[in-house]
């Protein structure tokens, strides 16, 4: 840095030295140092009280245990890297940092470039920006509902199951199964119902008889086959393994005749639950109802389960922040010299080439700022995880900021470890902060 221009952060003493050297320069350009201090003081006091002091105190506190009188040195920091649940939070934070900023920036770029081309750009931008007006807490509540497992409640699974059912419809009687005792003539074998030896009666249970109110009564087994029926009477009672008058038939099930481990014939149960194997000797085969008959309907994905929880929360985060990225990027887009784009087009570049070689390089400073801001933002993510993840998957969804709060206040009561986590988080954020500040400075210069 040259000696004539004091660094932006240069001290007042250095400034006055400059004045002595260049005697002919006007006496003073800015206000007097005293006045400068006077004007800076309120900001300085706030900065010290609300930023510097808490940081210093947190560092100090992190050297003590849950009780603030027993000094533990650096062992809280050691605990961060040895405790498996804290390591999970670090792993999750890494996933967040790798995925979320990239997706947010990319989506923001796509939206920004697209909205330049469409007629209702303002309306479109407004809608995309709308989630920013919702507090993260409310957004979390909304997405908790979106990700509900029950397709009747959760929009995400409602969409998935609708699409799925359009291609594969479920049939049969999910949940139906034989009774679990030694007297039952059939048993489960790998999802299929197989009779124990030769029988003509295949009683099943596990279905609410009221759902079969319109089904036909179970018929007596024919001479060349048998009957599959629901062996349950409303209110209990009825003879077990016997066809009672009010018991309903299970129609439309695939039935296979097994002899020596091989399928020798296949049939489907009729409306009264009966099936026929003409030509087979009675008693020479056992009966199998393949597992397909009892396949549960596709219920969508378990968004709030341990495996999908972090991607699901990242999805909610993207919903909130993509609009913000889009607005910043389209502001940058407006600043790109049009003639560069025009020149490229006249030279015969395709739109993709214009985008790749002209737009993106010219936009790169803005993209970088958005990207780095998102990284900082993602490192301290808290509220979405806190709200969207159900209690049982909180350990799998946990992130550092949430763990910090939990160990300090949420029952753990160990504010030493909490402070250590806070400092750890600060150290993670710092490089990106410096990077952003340096960029801003360079832009100003």
């Amino acid at each position, binding site marked *: 840095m040259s000696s004539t221009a004091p660094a932006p952060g240069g001290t007042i003493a250095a400034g006055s030295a400059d004045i002595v050297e260049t005697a002919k320069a006007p006496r003073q350009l800015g206000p007097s140092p005293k006045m400068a201090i006077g004007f800076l003081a309120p900001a300085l006091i706030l900065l010290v009280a609300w930023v510097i002091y808490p940081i210093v105190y947190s560092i100090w506190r992190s050297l003590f245990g849950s*009780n603030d009188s027993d000094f533990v040195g650096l062992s809280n920091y050691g605990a961060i890297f040895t405790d498996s649940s804290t390591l999970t939070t670090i792993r999750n934070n890494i996933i967040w940092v790798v995925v979320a900023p990239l997706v947010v920036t990319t989506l923001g770029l796509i939206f920004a470039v697209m909205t330049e081309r469409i007629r209702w750009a303002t309306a479109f931008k407004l809608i995309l920006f709308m989630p920013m007006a919702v507090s993260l807490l409310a957004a979390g509540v909304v997405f908790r509902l979106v990700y509900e*497992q029950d397709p009747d409640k959760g929009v995400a699974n409602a969409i998935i199951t609708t699409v799925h059912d359009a291609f594969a419809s479920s049939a049969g009687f999910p949940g139906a199964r034989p009774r679990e005792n030694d007297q039952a003539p059939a048993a489960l074998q790998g999802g299929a119902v197989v009779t124990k030896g030769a029988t003509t009666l295949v009683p099943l249970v596990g279905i609410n008889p009221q*759902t079969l109110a319109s089904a036909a009564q179970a018929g007596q087994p024919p001479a060349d086959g048998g009957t599959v029926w629901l062996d349950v009477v409303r*209110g209990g009672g009825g003879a077990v393994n016997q066809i009672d008058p009010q018991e309903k038939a299970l129609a439309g099930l695939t039935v296979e005749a097994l002899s020596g481990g091989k399928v020798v014939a296949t049939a489907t149960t009729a409306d009264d639950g009966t099936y026929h194997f003409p030509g087979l000797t009675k008693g020479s085969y056992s009966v199998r109802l393949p597992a397909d008959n009892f396949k549960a309907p596709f219920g969508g994905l378990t968004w709030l*389960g341990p495996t999908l929880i972090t991607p699901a929360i990242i999805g909610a985060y993207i919903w909130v922040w993509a609009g913000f990225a889009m607005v910043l990027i389209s502001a940058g887009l407006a600043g790109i010299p049009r003639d560069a784009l025009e020149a490229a087009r006249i030279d015969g570049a395709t739109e993709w080439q214009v985008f790749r070689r002209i737009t993106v390089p010219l936009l790169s400073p803005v993209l970088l700022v958005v990207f780095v801001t998102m990284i900082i933002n993602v490192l301290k993510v808290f509220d979405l995880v806190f709200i969207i993840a159900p*209690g*049982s998957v909180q350990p799998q969804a946990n992130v550092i900021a949430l763990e910090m709060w939990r160990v300090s206040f949420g*029952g753990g009561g160990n504010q030493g470890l909490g402070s250590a986590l806070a400092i750890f988080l600060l150290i993670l954020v710092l490089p990106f902060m410096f990077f952003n500040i340096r960029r801003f400075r360079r832009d100003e210069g």
Partner: protein
Amino acid sequence: MVSRKIAVVAALALGAAACGGGGSSSTSGGSSGAPASSAAAAKPLQGTKIEIAAKWTGDEQKSFQKVLDAFMAKTGATVTYASTGEDTGAYLGPRIQGGNPPDVAVLPQPGLVQQYADQGALKPLSDAVQTQIDQNYTPYWKELGSASGKVYGVLVKAAHKSLIWYRQGAFDDAGASPATSWDDLMSKTAQTLSDSGTAPFALCAASGWTLTDLFENVYLSSAGPENYDKLSKHEIPWTDPSVTTALQKIQMLFGKKEMMLGGSSGALQTDFPTCVTQVYGQKKAAMVIEADFVASSAVQSGAKVGEDAKIMPFPKAGDTDPVILGGDVAVAMKDNPGAMALLEFLASKEGGEVWAKNPGYLSPNRNVSPDNYPDELTKQLAQTIIQAGESVRYDMSDLAPSAFGGTDGKGEWKDLQDFLRNPTDIKGAQQALESDAAKAFNK
């Protein structure tokens, strides 16, 4: 404990609001204005301001407000109620650190009494309050509110945790009947229900405390009160054979996906009031294993308590009939006459009877007559507590340090959820429980 009823999302929102320093609502104080001049001598605390923090919201807060109103009318003090939100520790922690605790706090777990007493945040109760406790409570409850020989807290509100709620309609349809032993419950009642196409249980496994309640009932019953006390204090390890037996009993339930609505994966996503709705609102399941406070959620789902929403005592899984209580302990965080007078009132027969006349309250005070309760069910519950006397045990997870027994996603809550996810691994579950317990108890 009881405000756990609130939908988890709303509760979280409350907790976060409390974090921000909000959530404090001033009472109307209508009683303190006008009669101020009438009899100053009769109202010893005229002009005293007392702040009490508790986690009750909604109807429970309204009922409690009636008690505060009675206290204000009697003493002339002004009492401000502050809602702590779902997570009392998270609300009180920063206020204690900041040197600005409420005068009186109602802690949802006796474990917190020990924790705060160790931090020096609690004030020992005055002799007048202790006299009330000696008169109205059995020694077990006095010991519960004590830490290192000093009495700090008084149990002001109880929850009966040894109940199974069932839907009469589902039992009628299946021809099932309530069971008196755990084995019968599993092999007869639940099996009959399952055969009839109704899921026997709606488990609220996303709320980890419902699983600890289940474990405690089975353990108290199968291992007996002495082992229960030892395990509560971590004097025997969680790898003890008595724990194995209890987990084997629970495995009968956890190990079969037909036993619960939605299998274990569905159960693990269901939080507390939702499972009650599944039984009484959606009518998808037949039973829910939880405490007396299920009643209000059941009513909200359109069920009538006593007609379609019925209770059976938690069946014996061993030799002991389990009776487990939860409850809230009131403590003084500032040593002043106002705080002590309020605690004295809450521990008294007089205060308890004002409270008992309002819905949603069950008193552990043996001198509060059951006749005060507005409904038959509560009367019955109060009688069982009074009759059980010395053999009642307190909710074990609430006696443990809250890092083990009372934190979402940690300790016992997490380990039992993992056991539900993988019910074949009893040994692994015991080891996880033991290592978490060791960590929390050695602090």
